[in-house]
């Protein structure tokens, strides 16, 4: 560790870091703009200037940029030297030449890095008296608001959007002081990660558009540490509330999981929490089919009386917490507890569970995924099935460039230099999928195969790895690439609903585990708690079809819209008059509509629980605010039901922590669940962790329009957080960090004050705990998959997952619904040409007795005989992966709204290609 001197202070610093990082690590306030811990240095803003001295006798020194200067043994610097402070102030003064000073009406105001840095350098009076440059703003879609006049030209947006996230439709334009960051013309931003612009921009150029519509200042938001329930990655989020509405979601740093970034589903997909379609009261179905609203207690007593002495079964949910699912299982008994997976999903999830518990491969965190130097993706379009993992893969392919940089002695943080050195040289990323994926642009190889063939192809790779080169040259070559890698990673998952693919992927990983490099294996699974509920289900657990075939007398459904799991006949049979169905959920849906009693469940933002992500990491989310009306978290409904039905063990349980403890005791896999976060008794210097900032305003007045009597603050008896401004938000365990703020650092850049060191874990450790320990006995299993038999004039249906549209809850957010569009079918250009349709036209798709009209989307890369259908849309609800379909032009089709930007849509290649055209 080199020793450097800053203003005479001796500092031990990390080898290879730059002076800016060293200063921040030492707790020194050195202002900066363009540097970002995840994106490194380019030296454009010139804000982090210091004076460097040649030696002890040098009193003049020269100005250097902290972010561009590596630490060297014995180097001497000054932060406080007059020429350095004067220079830093001059930089802000010149940034202010064109900045509009519209802080009072700017959504960034109060959490603006530019404000913080301006105050930090001491700039006050601007000498410039000329006119300010002004720009036209662009419409960038429903998620991001653009206000170019505020730009200080730090290049962070372009570097994040293009270099880090792989976007192509936003960048720097024009030059000198007319620089403009935007699209070549107005239109919806294409990246699935556009929302991070809001947090990357140091001022208010890119702001959260849905938040603007119901804006509150950061200091007025009540926040809690939470976990995104949009997919199985389990990104840590910090949602903020005011006036009983969830206002926005910000990233919550987790060193091993999401780091600094979220996907747009995670950031913008929580609008459903404020939806008018939320259930407020319990209801009992009347003879005429309407519901009578009843009090909580009345509903509970009625439910208890229905259950008394009856055969009761429960259906859990992969989107409900471990605790809710656990309580349901205990309440109805394991042999009556269905995990709530569809018929196709259930064996897949059982398989994934078994794999994670037995594989020799390492199950990586996202941080570890970023370190992979060769990646094979089988069957997944990760950007849509586990978005944050895709962002990590975009970084993993850069390992080649870091290797080249190391040879040259170039530090990784020299971002532009490393990119210029490597140009388009990347670590191998091989994608074998049925259709083009959003990572094709960085892939070293893309192979289009139907799901069955992907499995077959993967088996050939296994053979080649075992030293029996197959006849498939590509497979042999991929085996070689994987074998020569130092840190290979295999990614697959359940999105194709294909057992064979998952098994073959595991077999490849297992096979590579015999190499010295070992292997990482990452399996994408469908929902936020799919793994948690899979762990709760055991062999005696019934499947959904089991329940359909022998319906119980009373059925308890917890947060699960069975319409998404069953076909209409099964649904009708299950919900028939013979069974009393009690459902708890948040939003109106088909299951609630068919239930005899509905109970309003709290959303993730109003409740607490644990989710187990795809790597087996249990993470705790806490209520951001109290549930309104008569909503209760599902675990509370179930606990109350248990008490009323005098359940043997559960009726002794009152509190959340007791549920966690009981669950941990019940099953070896959940032993560590108690460590996911501190329990209710945690106190920091005698106080709970405050959800409100110490500047939180109007607490005593904000309800005065309703009632002049000041309501008492709600008490939180279940968590170590308080609905209060009192307490300290500093250095607490990472799982209890509701927001970041530090004196002088009002923006999200204050995160560095919470990190143990720049870009490292938080001072309070890393939130969450790994539940699963693999026995490492090997997870290879026999693949017994029935191949789809093709028929003439038919296509094989392949599910197409969408960040916006495929998730059940987020699509109930207006902005996400707008992004999702309508149900669609994905066709290869050649097929479309043969059918005579182009992008935006309609076709009638018939499959398994279902006939639907769908919008055509055209892809450049599709496996032979395959067509895709957008998953999660009302139109495609009953289409099933792997089934056969026919296509015909929809003569009645009316094109939806004209495309905003026609030039953005690739026109299909009119050349008739070979693939898949035979059966039109």
């Amino acid at each position, binding site marked *: 560790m080199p020793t450097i001197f800053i203003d005479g202070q001796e500092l031990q610093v990390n080898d290879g870091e730059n002076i800016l990082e060293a200063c921040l690590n030492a707790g020194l306030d050195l202002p900066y703009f363009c540097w970002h811990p995840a994106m490194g240095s380019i030296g454009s803003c010139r804000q982090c200037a210091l004076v460097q001295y040649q030696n002890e006798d040098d009193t003049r020194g020269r100005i250097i940029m902290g972010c561009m200067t590596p630490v060297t043994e014995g180097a001497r610097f000054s932060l406080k030297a007059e020429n350095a402070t004067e*220079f830093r102030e001059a930089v802000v003064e010149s*940034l202010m030449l064109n900045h509009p000073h519209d802080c009072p009406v700017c959504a960034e105001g109060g959490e603006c890095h530019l404000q913080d840095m301006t105050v930090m350098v001491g700039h006050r009076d601007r000498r*410039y008296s000329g006119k300010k440059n002004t720009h036209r703003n662009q419409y960038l879609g429903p998620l991001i608001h653009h206000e170019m006049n505020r730009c200080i030209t730090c290049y962070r947006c372009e570097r994040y959007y293009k270099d880090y996230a792989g976007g192509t439709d936003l960048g720097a334009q024009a*030059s000198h002081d007319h620089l403009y960051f935007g699209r070549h013309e107005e239109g919806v931003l294409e990246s699935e990660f556009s929302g991070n612009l809001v947090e990357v921009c140091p001022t208010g150029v890119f702001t959260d558009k849905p938040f603007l519509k119901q804006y509150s200042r950061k200091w007025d938001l009540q926040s809690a540490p939470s976990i995104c329930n949009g997919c199985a990655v389990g990104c840590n989020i910090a949602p903020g509330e005011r006036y009983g509405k969830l206002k926005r979601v910000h990233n919550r740093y987790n060193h091993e999981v999401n780091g600094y970034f979220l996907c747009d589903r995670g950031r913008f997909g929580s609008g459903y929490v404020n939806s008018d379609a939320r259930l407020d009261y319990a209801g009992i179905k009347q003879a005429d089919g309407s519901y009578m609203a009843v009090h909580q207690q009345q509903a509970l007593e009625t439910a208890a009386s229905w259950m008394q002495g009856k055969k009761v079964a429960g259906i859990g949910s992969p989107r409900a917490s471990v605790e809710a699912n656990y309580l349901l299982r205990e309440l109805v008994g394991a042999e009556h507890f269905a995990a709530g997976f569809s018929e196709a999903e259930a064996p897949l999830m059982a398989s994934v569970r078994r794999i994670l518990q037995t594989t020799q491969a390492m199950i990586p965190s996202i941080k570890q995924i970023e370190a992979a130097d060769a990646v094979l993706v089988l069957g997944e379009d990760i950007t849509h099935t586990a978005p944050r993992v895709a962002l990590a893969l975009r970084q993993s392919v850069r390992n080649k460039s870091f290797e*080249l940089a190391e040879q040259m002695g170039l530090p990784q943080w020299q971002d532009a230099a490393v990119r210029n050195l490597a140009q388009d040289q990347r670590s191998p990323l091989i994608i074998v999928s049925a259709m083009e994926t959003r990572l094709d642009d960085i892939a070293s190889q893309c192979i289009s195969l139907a799901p069955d063939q992907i499995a077959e192809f993967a088996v050939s790779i296994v053979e080649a790895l075992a030293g029996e080169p197959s006849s498939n040259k590509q497979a042999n070559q991929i085996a070689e690439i994987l074998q020569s890698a130092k840190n290979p990673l295999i990614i697959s998952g359940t999105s194709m609903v294909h057992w064979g693919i998952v098994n073959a992927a595991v077999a490849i990983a297992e096979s590579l585990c015999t190499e010295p490099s070992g292997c990482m294996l990452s399996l994408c699974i469908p929902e936020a708690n799919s793994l948690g509920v899979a762990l709760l289900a055991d062999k005696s657990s019934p499947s959904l079809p089991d329940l359909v075939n022998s319906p119980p007398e009373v059925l308890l459904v917890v947060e699960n819209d069975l319409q998404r799991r069953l076909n209409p006949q099964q649904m009708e049979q299950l919900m028939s008059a013979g069974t009393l169905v009690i459902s708890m959920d948040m939003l109106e849906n088909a299951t609630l509509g068919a239930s005899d009693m509905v109970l309003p469940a709290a959303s993730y933002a109003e409740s607490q629980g644990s989710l187990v992500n795809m790597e087996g990491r249990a993470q705790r989310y806490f209520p951001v605010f109290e549930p309104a009306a008569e909503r209760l978290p599902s675990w509370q409904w179930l606990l109350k039901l248990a008490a009323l039905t005098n359940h043997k063990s559960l009726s002794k349980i009152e509190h959340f922590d007791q549920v966690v403890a009981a669950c941990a005791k019940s099953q070896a896999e959940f032993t560590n669940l108690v460590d996911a976060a501190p329990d209710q008794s945690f106190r920091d210097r005698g106080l709970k962790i405050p959800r409100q900032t110490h500047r939180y305003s109007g607490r005593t007045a904000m309800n005065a329009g309703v009632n002049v009597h000041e309501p008492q603050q709600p008490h939180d008896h279940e968590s170590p957080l308080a609905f209060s401004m009192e307490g300290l938000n500093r250095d607490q365990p990472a799982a209890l960090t509701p927001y970041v703020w530090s004196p002088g650092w009002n923006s999200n850049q204050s995160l560095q004050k919470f990190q143990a060191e720049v870009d490292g874990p938080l001072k309070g450790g890393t939130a969450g705990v790994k539940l699963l320990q693999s026995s490492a006995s090997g997870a290879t299993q026999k693949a017994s998959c029935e191949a789809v038999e093709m028929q003439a004039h038919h296509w094989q249906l392949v599910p197409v997952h969408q960040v916006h549209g495929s998730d059940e809850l987020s699509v109930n957010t207006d902005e996400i619904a707008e992004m999702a569009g309508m149900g669609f079918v994905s066709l290869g250009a050649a097929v479309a040409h043969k059918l005579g349709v182009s992008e935006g036209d309609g076709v009638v798709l018939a499959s398994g007795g279902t006939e639907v009209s769908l919008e055509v989307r055209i892809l450049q890369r599709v496996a032979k005989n395959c067509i895709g259908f957008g998953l999660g849309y009302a139109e495609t609800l009953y289409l099933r992966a792997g089934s056969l379909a026919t296509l015909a032009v929809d003569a009645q089709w009316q094109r939806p709204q004209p495309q905003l930007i026609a030039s953005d849509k690739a026109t299909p290649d009119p050349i008739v290609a070979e693939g898949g055209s035979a059966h039109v």
Partner: protein
Amino acid sequence: MEKVLTRNIGVDQKPTDLKAYEANGGYQGLRKVMAGMSPQDCQAVISDSNLRGRGGAGFPTGMKWSFVPSDDKCTPGHKYLVCNADEMEPGTFKDRLLMECDPHQLIEGMILSAYTIGADISYIFIRGEYLLAIQRLRDALKECYASGLLGDNILGSGYSLNMYLHPSAGRYICGEETALINALEGKRANPRAKPPFPQVSGLWGRPTIVNNVETLCNIPHIIDRGADWFKTLGLGEDAGTKLFGVSGRVKNPGCWELPMGTPIREIIEQHAGGMRDGYQLKGFLPGGGSTDFLTTEHLDLAMDYNVIGAAGSRMGTGTMIILDDRTCPVGMVLNLIRFFAHESCGFCTPCRDGLPWSRQVLQDLEEGRGQPEDLETLSYQIKYIGAIGNTHCALAPGAMEPLQSALKYFYDDFKQHISSGRCPYH
């Protein structure tokens, strides 16, 4: 004096074709090398010759080349030679003359340079407005390919080189070698941070040498006639000849090849014919728009890199701009700063936002709105923008040079603008 670089350039400024070029000793250097000189031999000659870069910085060419890693010290792949023909320095028009009138001299210099550094691909990055030079270079390249001087196995030596002509889309900053490289790669013409220097990671991340047109034109002669001969050409400490130019209100503005170290007075009074009648010399920028003013007291200095440097300016491109006594120095500086502010790539703050700030202060002065504190602001800006290292590249410090020296030499003019509330020259 013996003409070296301009020996094929007549008063009519007609282009020299391959035949005429060879007839006058052209491609002798190349034939000599291809017949048996090794790249190391060439490198030694150039290093010995004391040739310094003619683009403005005066960096020793041999040393620059020596930083290119040999094949065993870098990953396998291409190496590049790039000719910087993006001549956009205000007042500078020397490279245009060389390219328009003797394109083969440049090409021969490039082949020899590429051979020395082991480059297999070379580019001429030329200013887009130089239409005539583009046409003549294009014709010359065709001739070279047709006669085996370019392409595979040049003159049967086994050495292969391809040469491409790339007309620039046109920004002053493309003259900065790393911005040029970015532009050549199809990226924004922002300069790159150094290190790494282009010699190790340049065009497409590969070892790259970027040299000015005039520098490259010297190479065939040095190779052909030796380092010692070259050193004798200079009058002072610097070797060789140089194209010097004068623009402004002189009787005979133009460009002449003269020995290094020619006294300024000789250039202005003898070659440029002295000031036009009715005009007095007030000052001059010795080497283009981004060099410090010198005044009449400096007329007897020799045009050598170090001599001019010691006087507080830079020899730059060696093409002088004359300030006469009837032209407003504030207006002249404003004009230059306006140019530089407009040509900033917009990458770093002091340049992007600092230069327009200076422009605005100067404009206020020139238009009679100046305030006494403006001079302090200008000094503040010079300190802020003008120091190398404060900015990402040398554009903004260069832009500050005429301003800081104008404040030094013509301070009274600035004060008068403020006290009289108008430009005294109008």
